[in-house]
């Protein structure tokens, strides 16, 4: 049973890790980083390490997300994407800024 839970969590973690590299929008990449921290926290719980799980939850999901989100604004990376956000090769620059015209 624990194996299957771990399998689902590892799949979520690796998919989110690949998304961090391939998403064009940096806002979404930071959200995917938070998902990686979340999956790691559950894995630490499964590995019977509540202290490490709590640290990862507080630092990896909370504090690190806050620092990166603050950095997004200060680095001018918060522009929203246009649509086709998954690219084959890691995107580098800023995407078009008119994505939220229909919001």
């Amino acid at each position, binding site marked *: 049973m*624990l*194996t299957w839970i*771990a*399998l689902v*969590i*590892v799949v979520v*973690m*690796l998919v989110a*890790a*690949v998304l*961090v*590299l391939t998403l064009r929008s*940096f806002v979404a*990449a*930071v959200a995917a*980083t938070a998902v*990686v*921290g979340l999956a*790691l926290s559950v*894995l*630490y719980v*499964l*590995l*019977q*390490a*509540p*202290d*490490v799980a709590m*640290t*990862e939850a507080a*630092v*990896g999901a909370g*504090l*690190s997300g806050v*620092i*990166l989100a*603050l*950095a997004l604004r*200060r*680095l*001018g*990376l918060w522009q929203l994407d246009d649509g086709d956000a998954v690219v084959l*090769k*890691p*995107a*580098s*620059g800023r995407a078009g800024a008119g994505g939220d015209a229909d919001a």
Partner: protein
Amino acid sequence: MIPLSLETVSYAGAIGLVVIGGLGLVICNHLFRMLLALAMAESGANLLLVLTGFRDGAIAPIIGYGPAGAPLVDPLPQVLVLTAIVIGVGVQALAVAVLVRVYRSYGTLDMRELRRRMEGEIAAAAGIAAPGSAQAPLGQRPLPPVPDYELVRRSAPVRERGA
């Protein structure tokens, strides 16, 4: 055949995280994405360390919970990883501060663009033309520097006069 168990699945996850993070560090051109990849590789290493302390059928290393006499997992890797996670977030904050500074100075975080601008700035300060790429087509490649003996001879007395 590798058996499918909690340990092997976690091991695969840790290795995958390290490899994806390392790959991102090499392939990505954007400094912020490299920071994200670095954080992921670090997390994978932490998971690997915690995994080394895990024992089958053992419970969390806190006395007084669970059945009496049950084995406890190895607490030492957990302590080391606790330290590593907290230091990792300190490093991340410092890296973000440096990135803010770089962005303020050069207006970009793309590695190629950043290198071009920095080389342009250095070249402007040195008073020479900005160098081109070594991988450019044949006609646009920078020529190897030729020592200019005339310039050396002319500049030597100037330095003497200044001293």
